[in-house]
């Protein structure tokens, strides 16, 4: 089955057409030396030169979100539910590792409690993904966690930049197929299914040296105590860069902010590398050193979450590798674990 192609130069117009009137539009634009996904950015500024520094997480799980309001009236507290500040949205030219984060975290947001804030945003968000012809950054390792530079997981539509001028379109989900007419309006030609397969192969080839991380879970289960944690993570400074840039990290903190006669409750991003994250009221902290906190992050991603939800809590986007202020590389740590497992250590 052939797939339609569009001109690359038509992508900004396509973004506008998809967003139509009143939809939020998120797309990657350049800010200084780096790219960021930004809501409301000018489509003409669309920049696809590399992977953005932030993930698409913030458009489904904002860094701070009001979840209820309350008023004091006499001796009573009146609680008002609030609805998510959501609305129809288009994330245009997400990277496959970002789109793939959505099916990874969906079970979490629908486990013992259905999080209406995430779910409502998710239901209203169309994800148009821009496949990577080759790995856009040295930090990329999507193939290590069973994904690929042209993975369609979590995508409604997948765009393949098959060469410098043409972009092939694959409508992935029912929501994506409903938009066939919009895409057809930009149709300039066709490519064969084989050429998309070749494209996918080229992407995977560019990451041929990355390790499959299929033995990491096993290794972790037997090495809760191991010199590796101290060796790698004593350099960790305990900031939230890795967790906050991560498309799959989802921990949050609840804060009540009051003024005189009422206030609101907020759901804010939180991170396991902060010393306060597990500090008990008694003063005891079960994760009292940075290597223990770092171990927790790896265990959660590669052992605990897969155990519970059947998926690795990592899409190999590499942001935690590229942007760690002290170059503590998650890939270095998990690939070391994999190597040791392969050697039977």
């Amino acid at each position, binding site marked *: 089955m052939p797939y339609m192609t569009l001109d690359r130069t038509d992508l900004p117009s396509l973004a506008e057409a998809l967003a139509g009137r009143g939809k939020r539009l998120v797309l990657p634009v350049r*800010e*200084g*030396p*780096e790219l*960021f996904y930004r809501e409301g950015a000018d489509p003409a500024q669309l920049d696809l030169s590399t992977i953005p*520094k*932030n993930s698409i997480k913030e458009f489904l799980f904002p*860094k*701070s979100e009001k979840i209820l309001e309350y008023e004091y009236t006499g001796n009573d507290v009146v609680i008002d539910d609030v609805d998510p500040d959501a609305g129809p949205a288009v994330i245009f030219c997400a990277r496959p590792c970002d789109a793939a984060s959505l099916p990874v975290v969906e079970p979490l947001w629908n486990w013992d409690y259905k999080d209406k804030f995430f779910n409502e945003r998710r239901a209203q968000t169309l994800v148009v993904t821009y496949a990577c012809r080759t790995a856009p950054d*040295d*930090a990329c390792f999507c193939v290590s966690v069973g994904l690929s530079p042209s993975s369609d997981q979590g995508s409604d539509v997948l765009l393949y930049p098959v060469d410098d001028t043409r972009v092939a379109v694959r409508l992935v989900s029912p929501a994506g197929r409903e938009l066939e007419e919009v895409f057809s309006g930009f149709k300039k030609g066709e490519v064969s299914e084989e050429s998309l397969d070749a494209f996918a192969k080229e992407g995977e080839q560019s990451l041929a040296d990355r390790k499959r991380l299929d033995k990491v879970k096993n290794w972790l289960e037997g090495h809760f105590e191991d010199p590796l944690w101290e060796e790698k993570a*004593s*350099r960790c*400074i*305990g*900031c*939230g*860069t890795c*967790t*906050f*840039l991560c498309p799959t990290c989802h921990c949050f*903190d609840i*804060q009540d*902010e009051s003024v005189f006669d009422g206030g609101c409750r*907020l759901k*804010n*991003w939180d*991170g396991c590398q*902060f010393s*306060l994250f597990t500090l008990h009221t008694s003063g005891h902290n079960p994760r009292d*050193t*940075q290597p223990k906190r770092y171990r927790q992050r790896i265990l959660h991603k590669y052992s605990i979450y897969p155990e519970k939800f059947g998926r690795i809590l990592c899409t190999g986007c590499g942001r935690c*590798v*590229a*942007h760690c*202020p*002290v*170059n*503590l*590389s998650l*890939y*270095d740590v998990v690939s070391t674990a994999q190597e040791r497992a392969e050697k039977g250590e």
Partner: protein
Amino acid sequence: MSDRTEGIREIARKWLGDGTVEAVVGWEQGTYKDKTSPVLIRTPEEADRLLFNERCTNNLMTYLKREPVRGMEKVGIVAKGCDIKALIGLLQESQVEREKVKVIAVTCPGVKKDDGTVPVKCRACDVNTPTFYDEIVGEKVDSSPEPGARFEGLEALDAMTPAERFRFWRGELDKCIRCYACRQVCPLCICSRCIAEKNQPQWVETSPHPRGNFSWNLVRAYHLAGRCVECEACETACPVNIPLMLLNRAMARTVKGAFDYEAGKDPETQPPLRAFNLDDDNSFIL
């Protein structure tokens, strides 16, 4: 710069071998692109991991405030001139004992940022050849600070009306995600429990909304006024690219103007905002 690398390794090997120090904090080759990574070396055999090159951007003094280095009796630390300014700050404030820290100073022609550009601190550098250390490696490098480099960018802010300036900072601080990378890499953010982590009462809102972000970033800037040594660690680490050094350098310029003081120069002096003299200028109050 390989002679510097050799020099660092030789001293580290000697100190670790004869028990002068328990460990040496230095840089090693990183795993991403040409980045380096801070490393804690504990045995003479491991000393060959240490290196110095133009990508040794991290200020390692931040490790003096945290475990396991904090608990050590004696520690060696590799440092550029700009990093040593932070050590001077820590000594002034009695945060470390001079006897505990053995400094391997390295002369430095300047470092490069991730994007290949030269940081402002290098263009404005007056300590290419450090003067405060236990051992020094590398050929002498003369300093020729580029006039005006240090405070460049501040003119544009000065030219704004207060309303324009507020809008500028509102835009920048809106980006803050409260990852606290700025605080965590900062060698002079020394509070064992930061005010942003105190909740009885909660002085600073932890939410990354405009009010919370202004509170946090301004509290940090004020606490660093006259103490910040302009190592740029915070701005380099910031994952959302807030120009934090504009805040810090504006503070440094004010302190310079009001007290003729520059942080990180002389361990025998005290930062003006933490010292009191009867003959201090009171004209701004009275």
